[in-house]
């Protein structure tokens, strides 16, 4: 009888540890940082909705995760929907989460950047933003 008591007691004692850890974790986590609601694109140069005096030489997109270049597309189109750049982009050497699209000399007008990115953990995300080049 005593041996079965000690056996079961030791069995339940094992459960005490996770229970304690769980309570402590819940208390500790009440002020944990909230889950970010930001989109995958962390920043863009030129910034979204910028009005620029000079046409930009390139578009730089910084993402929050590494992406697969083979399945990533970036297109820059003008106000008529014609593509001005987007055949190719370069991945930044220093940061594999950043890419650069070189632009030809852009005429004044409104432009839109459309991007579709496959992150390395196989999730697709896409988005778009615009910028304006002043005459």
């Amino acid at each position, binding site marked *: 009888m005593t*041996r*079965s*008591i000690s*056996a*079961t*007691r*030791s*069995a*339940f*004692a*094992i*459960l*005490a540890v*996770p*229970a*304690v*850890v769980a*309570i*402590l974790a819940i*208390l500790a*986590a*009440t*002020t*944990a*940082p*909230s*889950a*970010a*609601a*930001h989109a*995958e694109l962390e*920043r863009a*140069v*030129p*910034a979204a*909705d*910028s*009005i*620029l*005096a*000079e046409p*930009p*030489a*390139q578009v*730089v997109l*910084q993402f*929050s*995760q*590494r992406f*697969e270049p*083979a*399945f990533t597309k970036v297109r820059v189109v003008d106000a008529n929907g014609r593509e001005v750049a987007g055949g190719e982009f370069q991945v930044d050497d220093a940061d594999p989460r950043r890419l650069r699209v070189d632009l030809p000399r852009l005429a004044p007008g409104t432009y839109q950047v459309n991007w*579709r990115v*496959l*992150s*390395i*953990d*196989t*999730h*697709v995300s896409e988005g778009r933003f615009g910028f304006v080049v002043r005459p």
Partner: protein
Amino acid sequence: MNELLGALRAVHIGCAMLLFGEAVFALAVRPPPDQAGAVRWRVDRRFLAVARWSLAALVVSAIAWLIVQAAAMSGKPLAEAATLRSIGLVLGSTVFGAAFSVRAVLVVALAIVLVAWQRRQKSARSREFMIIHSGLAAALLGSLAWTGHAVAGDPSEAFLRIGADVAHLLAAGAWIGALPALVFHLGSTVSPQRAAMAGRFSRLGVASVGVLAASGLVNAWYQVGGIPGLIGTGYGRLLVVKLAIFGALLCLAAMNRGLAAGALDSGGGQRLHRLRVNAIGEIALGAALLAVLAPLGTSVPAIHDPVVWPFDATLELAPIRESAWQQVVVAAAAVAACAAAAVLVAGAIAWPPRLSIGAAAGVVASLALIGIILAVPAYPTTYQLSPVPFSAQAVATGAASYDEHCSRCHGHDGAGASLDLRDIVPERREGDLFWTIAHGLPEGRMPAFGSQLSAATIWRLTQFLDAQVAARNALALSDRLRPSLPVPAPDFAYEIPGMPQQSLRQQEGNQVALLVFYSLPSSLARLRDLAALEPAYAKAGARVIALPMLDSPAASAGQVGGAGVKILASAGPAVARAYRLFAGKAASRTVATGAVANGDGVANGSTGAGNPRHIEYLVDRFGLLRSRATGLPGAQQSDAMLAKVETLARETREPPALWAHRH
């Protein structure tokens, strides 16, 4: 498509775990540790048969997974994606494909080993085969880490996250994958060998659980981030289900531990039988775990998903920050809850029932006390962060919206409607502010604006409210560095001719910035000085950004000379408008009035309260405004400015945060 991917992953992972688990069982659990020689390494036909079938199922599921994954990656339907070209692209150019290729090599090697082993069963080479087989099975299981979420994050965290993933997979495989072997080898007749085997397996289980818990915590930290993510996102709730199944597995395993300890007693046959039944239950739970695991792998991690909080209240430590006695009570209640929980589980059977009931009541009472003290109202958007960043554009647009919709009741600076918004806003999360603006307050205290204003507009209002609080704090800014009143500087993009667009909060190498708002012609001399001093500022690690005030023409490089080209910037009108908030007592009244919103009939400083014509702000490396100098500086002040820049550039730690919840 995602469901199919998930199912294929589940089958694949299950096979890999079985392959590895039976090897671990054969190596560590089945043979007695003191018996030496070839007996230890010989395996029976059943072992090889299970290995063959697992490997076959693994291969089939892997090929199907590859095809479905190619379709998901390219966005094409399944039929189109199942071409050699598309699959070749996946294999050759993606991390997933590279991992797949490596694993294909491992599979081929394993198949060769199995075939050769089958042929040579009688010979004494079993030891080598066993070692190679176990190594390959471990590699097949562990390499699955490169197909999960751990591989996609910040490269500097990759080692830790992938390592945790590999450990998690191997520990799960060693424990759950070995269960079928355990069930098979435990008969209903007691023998010392079987009892010893049960005991060894139980120790393996304990080690495995430890590794699973530790590695699981690491991964959860990076992928969930906290309790809000756990409760408020689909990924988080799936994880809770996984943890519940894991908890049930733990209970069964704990029971087995106790049963194994007493297996050699009289009535031991019953115990072993019970143990066996439990192990079958554990296998079922393991299968359920795999079923949950599958959608987890294909979902967006909670940390990238907006949190929708499901309850009316939540626990917050921030409100009791000031109150020492409440902190003591909460801490004491937490300790009491832990102690009562320990008493409860440790003495559940053996000690008098009254003690257990008392302990249970103690746990409930302590948690209730903590809940009462820490509970605050919460809404679905409470834990969401603003998708609109704290930028000059947002603040200026928010100011215009505020004038139009809010100033009637709340006044032009927030001090209306019998409360001062600037006292309330720092105590609330952005998501709470969003909800209150969108849904109003009950009993008609505040109308709901959700139907009139878009979500983006409401978020901009929250940024403007943050800026109003910052503006009030900015009243205390002076031309001396203040360490204790951080005022966040709204971000903005600016252009300097000949250089790509930059922003105040650059991503890398955060530099100190001297932000100069000037008016021509009075500021010209100072601009010339700054142009001449620019190399000194650059050497001190700072940028000089000179922007014209709203009613001033922009200076040209020719007027300024020197390194004028490097400091004269242009930015949208929102920047000057937003930064006027921080201009101090004289100017703060002009903010958030119609004058600001409508393109600035604000006077040239020739009327009354004296709008400053020249202001220089110092922004530190953490994006905080640390000093404000109004008016044109003399020589002494100019030198002092450079010294201040040098002090700021040397700072390594962010000053203590004003607000707990954001930025």
